[in-house]
């Protein structure tokens, strides 16, 4: 009876201890089940292969790390890796029986591709899988920042910062007359395409915008859509408007506005053009319009 009581106490203690220990072990898993793993060697370069109509690009991405020199672990400060001098070559992988097992295991994971080796001047060595039908003459290696370069994003940034000329709206006559057509045209820009390019990590992005159409607003509620910027005087402009009343009731001037819609496109490394969202730019001028007064005389 005495043994039985001691046994029960120990048994209870044992079970409680076991449950407590298991809970302690399991708690972090329960509390932080969505935590990401820590990726070893987070600054490791990455390698990827992209195929396009222009060929195959093997991209080696280098991460910026806050590294010091290997001889001075205490040094600090961020330094971007210098890969400007990297010279890399790629060729189809050759190997003997020693890599046969590896090939047999890897090949099913990369259908339609064969292994290529990439070697760079700094000692870099990597293996990538390149489409079987790739023309070796069109396989190139590009080294750049690890963050994936999206040419479309670069192109959009370039487009948004293109130096569009400072356009002005010209008119003839300088002061409009009621019922007499006024001629308008865009001054300071002949409508020719505007281009810019940028090279980042071996990727050259070229952007071109060109005026697609012009939306005119003459300030009195009348609008006009044209594909022409108008023609400067003395030529007869195809952008014409006859005001029905003077600008006296509109504060002395009408605000004439032209909104130019530019179509945009871009290409990568001289390849085929690809479409990009259009942009618009607006320009405004004040335009006074007067009413001619008739005066009757005895003569």
């Amino acid at each position: 009876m005495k043994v039985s009581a001691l046994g029960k106490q120990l048994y209870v203690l044992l079970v409680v201890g076991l449950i407590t220990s298991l809970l302690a072990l399991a708690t972090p898993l329960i509390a932080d089940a969505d935590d990401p793993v820590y990726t070893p060697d987070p600054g490791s370069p990455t390698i990827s292969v992209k195929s396009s109509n222009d060929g195959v690009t093997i991209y080696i991405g280098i991460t910026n790390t806050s590294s010091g020199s290997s001889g001075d672990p205490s040094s600090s400060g961020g330094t971007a890796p210098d890969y400007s001098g990297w010279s890399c070559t790629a060729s189809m992988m050759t190997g003997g029986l020693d890599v046969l097992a590896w090939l047999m295991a890897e090949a099913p994971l990369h259908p339609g591709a064969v292994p290529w080796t990439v070697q760079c001047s700094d000692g870099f060595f990597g293996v990538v899988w390149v489409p079987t039908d790739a023309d070796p003459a069109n396989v190139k290696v590009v080294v750049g920042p690890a963050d994936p370069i999206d040419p479309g994003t670069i192109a959009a940034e370039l487009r948004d910062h293109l130096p569009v000329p400072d356009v002005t709206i010209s008119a003839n006559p300088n002061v409009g007359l009621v019922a007499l057509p006024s001629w308008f045209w865009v001054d300071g820009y002949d409508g020719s395409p505007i281009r810019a390019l940028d090279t980042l990590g071996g990727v050259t992005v070229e952007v071109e915008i060109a005026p697609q159409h012009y939306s005119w607003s003459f300030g009195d509620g009348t609008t006009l859509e044209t594909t022409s910027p108008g023609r400067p005087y003395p030529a007869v402009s195809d952008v014409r408007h006859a005001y029905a009343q003077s600008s006296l009731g509109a504060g002395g001037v009408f605000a004439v506005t032209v909104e130019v819609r530019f179509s945009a496109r871009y290409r990568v490394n001289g390849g085929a053009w690809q479409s990009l969202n259009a942009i618009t730019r607006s320009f405004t001028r004040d335009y006074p319009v007067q009413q001619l007064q008739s005066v009757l005389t005895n003569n």
Partner: protein
Amino acid sequence: METQARLALTSALLVVCIMLVACDGGGDDANSQSSTSTSTALPTTPGATPTAGASVKDEVSAAYLHYWNVYANAVYNLDPSRLGDLMTGPRLDRALAEVRDLKHQGRAVKIVVENRPVVVHVEDTRAVVSDEYENRSHFIDPDTKQPLTSPSGGEVIHDQVTLALVDGIWKVFDSVREAQ
């Protein structure tokens, strides 16, 4: 009867204690921070010195796995002093920076990986290992070694690692990761 009961209880307690220790994976033992599937038969000396009778591929494999142990120790103890034993070049630079960054963050890392390395290329002074491994590494408190994060799942990483033979020792020179 009394003796038999005590003996039985003591035995049961012992079994449970052994189970708890086994579940805990050794707790804070600095030598058990890296759970690599192939980390049991590693050389204990720095580097993988070529030995007579061992093939070059075996030497490279051993050096590669030893590299993981050294790396795991460094990020576990935030001690970069042994990194140079098994690393050189860009990989050493990155590992030193990594330990320094972890110190700055006040965190350490328990490396939990299951390596599946294959030596795919060997030359006189250079070798390449392809390793598609499962990673479940996580942050720990640098002092208590208790997990700060506990990921529920893992990730598969495919690294190609270049080793260079430096003064008779295979050292990891650089690696490249297949982009996800």
